[in-house]
C-alpha cells in the first residue's frame, strides 16, 4: 500500500538525511523501522507526512504518488502520523485534541463512534477528557496522540518513537494497543529505538543506516540475526542464542 522508492532528502546545503531509502508497507502489516540516531528515520516519516519534500525518489500510497500532496490532504488519504514527542495541543482539552483528529471530511463521518472506541481503548482518557492535555502524564499524552491519530480513521498509522520517555510498563501497554489496532486491519509503520520490543511485535523490519535501508526482512529473522543483535541489542544479547 505504501511504497517508498529511492527517497533522497536533505536539509540545507549539505546535510543529506536520506540517500535512496526504499521500503514498503503492505495492507495489515506492522513494519518496524529501526536504525541508529541520525539515520534518517524521522526524515522518512516527515516525507511520508508531507512535511518535507524529498529531492528525489517516489512515494506512493495505494498506487498514487504522494510527493507534493500537502500534509492535511495526506491525512484525508488515510495516513495518520504520530510524530516524535507526541506534539499534542497542550492548551486544548483531551477531548478537543481527540476531536481534532477527526478533522478531515472523511474522518468526520463516524467521528462520534470512533471517539467512543478510543475511550474504550484508553479508559483513563475518558476520565480526563476535560483536562488540558499538557497536564497529563507522558504515557497518557501518548495515548491521546495515538487516539488522535486513530480518530482520523487511518489505513496506515505511522509512529515516530512512541516509547520515548515512557516507563517500561507504559510502553508495553502502548505496544499491546498497537498490536490490537493492527489486528483490526490498520497497517502500522513503527519507528523505534526500542529494538527489542519493536521486533517482538512487527511482521517485518527495515534497518535504516546513513539514509539508506541496510537490512530488511521478517522481524523474527532480524531478531535472531547475530549482527543485528550485536549492533542494536548489545554484546550480551548477541552472545545469547
Amino acid at each position, binding site marked *: 500500500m505504501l511504497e517508498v522508492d529511492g527517497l533522497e532528502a536533505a536539509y540545507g546545503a549539505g546535510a543529506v538525511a536520506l540517500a535512496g531509502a526504499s521500503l514498503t508497507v503492505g495492507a495489515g502489516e506492522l513494519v518496524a523501522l529501526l536504525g541508529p540516531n541520525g539515520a534518517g528515520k524521522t526524515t522518512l516519516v516527515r516525507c511520508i*507526512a*508531507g*512535511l518535507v519534500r524529498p529531492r528525489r525518489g517516489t512515494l506512493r500510497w495505494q498506487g498514487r504518488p504522494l510527493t507534493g500532496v*500537502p*500534509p*492535511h490532504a495526506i*491525512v*484525508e488519504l488515510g495516513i*495518520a*502520523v504520530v*510524530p516524535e514527542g507526541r*506534539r*499534542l*495541543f*497542550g*492548551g*486544548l482539552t483531551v477531548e*478537543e485534541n481527540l*476531536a*481534532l*483528529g477527526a*478533522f*478531515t471530511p472523511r*474522518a468526520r463521518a463516524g467521528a462520534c463512534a470512533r471517539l467512543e472506541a478510543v475511550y474504550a481503548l484508553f479508559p483513563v482518557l475518558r476520565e480526563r477528557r476535560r483536562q488540558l492535555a499538557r497536564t497529563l502524564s507522558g504515557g497518557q499524552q501518548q495515548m491521546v496522540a495515538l487516539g*488522535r491519530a486513530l480518530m*482520523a480513521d487511518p489505513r496506515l498509522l505511522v509512529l515516530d518513537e512512541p516509547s520515548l520517555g515512557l516507563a517500561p510498563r507504559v510502553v508495553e501497554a502502548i505496544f499491546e494497543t498497537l498490536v490490537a489496532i493492527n489486528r483490526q486491519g490498520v497497517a502500522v509503520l513503527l519507528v523505534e529505538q526500542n529494538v527489542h520490543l519493536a521486533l517482538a511485535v512487527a511482521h517485518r523490519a527495515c534497518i535504516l543506516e546513513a539514509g539508506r535501508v541496510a537490512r530488511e526482512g521478517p522481524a523474527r529473522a532480524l531478531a535472531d540475526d547475530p549482527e543485528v543483535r550485536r549492533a542494536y541489542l548489545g554484546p550480551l544479547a548477541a552472545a545469547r542464542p
Partner: protein
Amino acid sequence: MTVLQQAVLGLLLGGLYGLAAAGLSLIFGVLRVLNVAHGELIMLGGYGAFWLFALAGVDPFLALLVVVPAALLAGLALYAGLFRFVVAAEEETRIKNSLLIGFGLGLALHAAAVRLWTADERAVTPAWAGGALTVGGIAIPLVRLGALAVALVLIGALHLLLARWRWGHAIRATAEDREAALLAGIDVRRAYALAFALGTALAGAAGVLVSTGYSVSPAIGLEWTLKALIVIVLAGLGSIFGTFVGGLVLGLAEAASAAAFGGAYREIVGLVVFFVVLLVRPRGLFARA
C-alpha cells in the same frame, strides 16, 4: 475631574484597547505575523462608521453590521494578497517580514486616508450621543458605555467561536503547534486566513467604536497599533479574556498617570511600562509557562 471619574473613563477606553489588542493577538498567536498596520485597519473601520453616518445617517452601532463583515472580507483579501506570502518562512524571518510589510501597508493606508479624507479629526455624533449615566457623582457617557458593552460582546463572541466551532478549534490548534495541526489533517492555510479575517474584523469593530465615543483621523493608526502592542505584551498571548483585561489595565494606568503627572504624560506611561515589560518578560506578564 476627580480621580474616580478619570478611572472610569480610563476603563471605558481600556475596553477598546482590549478589543483592538484581541484582534492583533489572534493574528499574531496563530500566524506568528505582526501586522503593524492593525491600527490603520482600526482607522479605516472608524472612517467606515463616519461616512455611513455622514452620508446615510446610519447609527454607528448599526454601522457595525456593515463594517464588521466588510472588515472580515478585507482581512481575507489582505491575507490572500499579502500576508500569505509571509507565512511560508520560518518564524524569525516571518515576524521580521510581516513587520516590514505591515509597516509599508500602514504607510500606504495612512497616506491614502490623508489624501481621501484630509488629516482632520472626525467623530460620529448621533443625536443621543450627548447623554450620560450618572452614578454616584460619576458621569458615564452613554456612547462610551455602549462601546464598552459592544466590545465585551464581541470578545465573548470570539471566545465562543474559538471554543465551540470546529474551525475555532483548528485555529487554536494551529496557534499551539502548526505542524501537529497539519498532521491532524487541518488545512493550516485556511486556519491562517480565518484567523487573519477575524482579527481584522475585530479591528474594524474597534474602529467603529473609537470613531463614535472618541474621534478618528489618519494619525490614530500608529497610536492604536502601539496600544494594541502594549496590551499584548502586558497580557501575553493565549487568553482572549486576558487580553481584554490587559486593555482595561492599560486604560486605568493611563488614567492614573494623567491624574498623577498631568494629561501630557498619559501616553508615555503606557510606552514606558511596555518597554520595561518587554525587557523583563517579552512574552508578557501573564504568559503561560
